[in-house]
């Protein structure tokens, strides 16, 4: 059974449309939601959580969000980019207000997590570092037995060491507690470390939803000495770089002798697919 299934999630704003996004988060998997700023990552997450009025179906462990929203939300732990709420309140006051909403709240687990994360309940939210805020949000989300964690850019604003620590915690949760995770980010090094699958959104449209290895294995990064060579090789998203031109090639395509091809990273894939996407849109306008 999938932990999360999203079918044709659509939200229309005057200047932006999230267009029929469909993907799933298999149970026990970590899925990275990627895309450039404004691509629709946060809108997708808000649509899943019904924070915005979006069309489409969302089901968590087989339960439909539209039909049984309260039961579904009991199974979800939401971490919205750290903890930006109630800056002047103590963690204790927030926990006391938060815990009664969850009949499955485990105070012992919460206290263990606080000890593990070295958090004091006497502190106010504004006294926490960005990393500590993320940990507090995680502690709240996990203490009510959430089986699906949905996180919106949780590692933004964290230093590399804190990001590393965060990734370790998430990996531990998946391995030991069987939690499934969907998290949006534009820090692709985090994904390389922990993600099993990738959902790639560009300009409100789904460009890819597949295992990370499949995405990485699909493209190679090729460098060309001239634009003509790149065009002849049918390279994707060609752009000028310091020495020549760079573009993606599908793995099964022949690489010309004049080109040098290496393994593509997620960053390479995003940059060149975005470029190709923009050019496609420009061509339509032309």
């Amino acid at each position, binding site marked *: 059974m999938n932990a999360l299934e999203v079918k044709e999630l659509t939200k229309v704003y005057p200047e932006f449309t999230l267009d029929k996004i469909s993907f799933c988060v298999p149970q026990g998997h970590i899925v990275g939601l990627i895309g450039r700023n404004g691509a629709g990552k946060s809108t997708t997450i*808000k649509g899943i*959580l*019904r*924070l*915005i*009025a979006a069309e489409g179906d969302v089901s968590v462990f087989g339960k439909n969000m539209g039909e049984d*929203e*309260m*039961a579904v*939300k*009991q199974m979800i732990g*939401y971490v*919205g980019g750290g903890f*930006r*709420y*109630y*800056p*002047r*309140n103590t963690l204790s*006051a*927030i926990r*006391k*207000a*938060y815990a*009664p*909403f*969850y009949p499955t709240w485990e105070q012992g687990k919460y206290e263990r997590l606080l000890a593990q994360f070295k958090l004091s309940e006497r502190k106010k939210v504004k006294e926490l570092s960005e990393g500590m805020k993320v940990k507090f949000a995680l502690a709240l989300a996990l203490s009510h037995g959430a089986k699906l964690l949905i996180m919106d850019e949780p590692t933004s604003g964290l230093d590399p060491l804190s990001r590393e620590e965060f990734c370790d915690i998430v990996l531990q949760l998946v391995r030991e507690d069987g939690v499934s995770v969907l998290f949006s980010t534009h820090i692709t090094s985090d994904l390389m470390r922990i993600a099993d699958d990738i959902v790639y959104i560009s300009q409100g449209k789904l460009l890819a939803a597949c295992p990370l290895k499949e995405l990485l294995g699909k493209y190679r990064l090729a460098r060309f000495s001239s634009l003509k060579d790149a065009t002849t090789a049918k390279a994707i998203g060609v752009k000028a770089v310091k020495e020549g031109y760079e573009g993606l090639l599908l793995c099964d395509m022949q690489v010309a002798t004049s080109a040098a091809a290496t393994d593509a990273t997620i960053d390479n894939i995003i940059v060149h697919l975005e470029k190709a996407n923009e050019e496609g849109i420009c061509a339509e306008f032309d």
Partner: protein
Amino acid sequence: MLNLIKKEIALCMHPTAFIFLFFAVLVFVPNYPYEVIFFFSCLSVFFCCMMTRENGDIAFSCALPVKKEYIPLAKMLVVFGLQGIILLLVGIIGAVKGAVLPAEQYVNQAGISANLALVGNGAVLLGVFNLIFFPRYFKSPDKIGVPFVIGAVAVFLLISIFIVLRWTTPLYSVALNGLNSENIGAKAAALTMGIVIYIILSAISCKLSMRHFQRIDV
């Protein structure tokens, strides 16, 4: 719902929501338009909404396992509770004033005396504020200023009308004025009517607010 109300009280109440309740003692101030006391209650609602915004409370609440329409309802029920307390306090402290001060000091040159009719007037003021403020606020909870200004202008217009009535109509200057023991029937009727109007206006306000809040994107 009870959990949402507890969360509201624990995390979203501005100190003025409780401090302004003590302003009920202003009924001891001689020659003062006592209806203004109820405006302070409206002002505390404004501060609480500011606190809600600064705390990101709406987004936090929407992620909780609760029905979305219950979020405005819980906020409004807390406000109704506070409004009920200020009405009760004004009534009680007004009665105490009537009991301890000489009758001539009970006469108010700036409006009606601190009696049951004043509580009825206060209920109407608060009901009108609820009807104007909350449905507008819950259409867009980030914008608090405009709904509050519109509500406050309406409240002060009504206060002015009550003061004019005090000096121009026998009903307000005689029947509804003075000690509770004088013309008790008229004052009790004014109080009852005020409370009924408050309940009707607040119930409409709840319905509209819940409907508007369902449509907003957090």
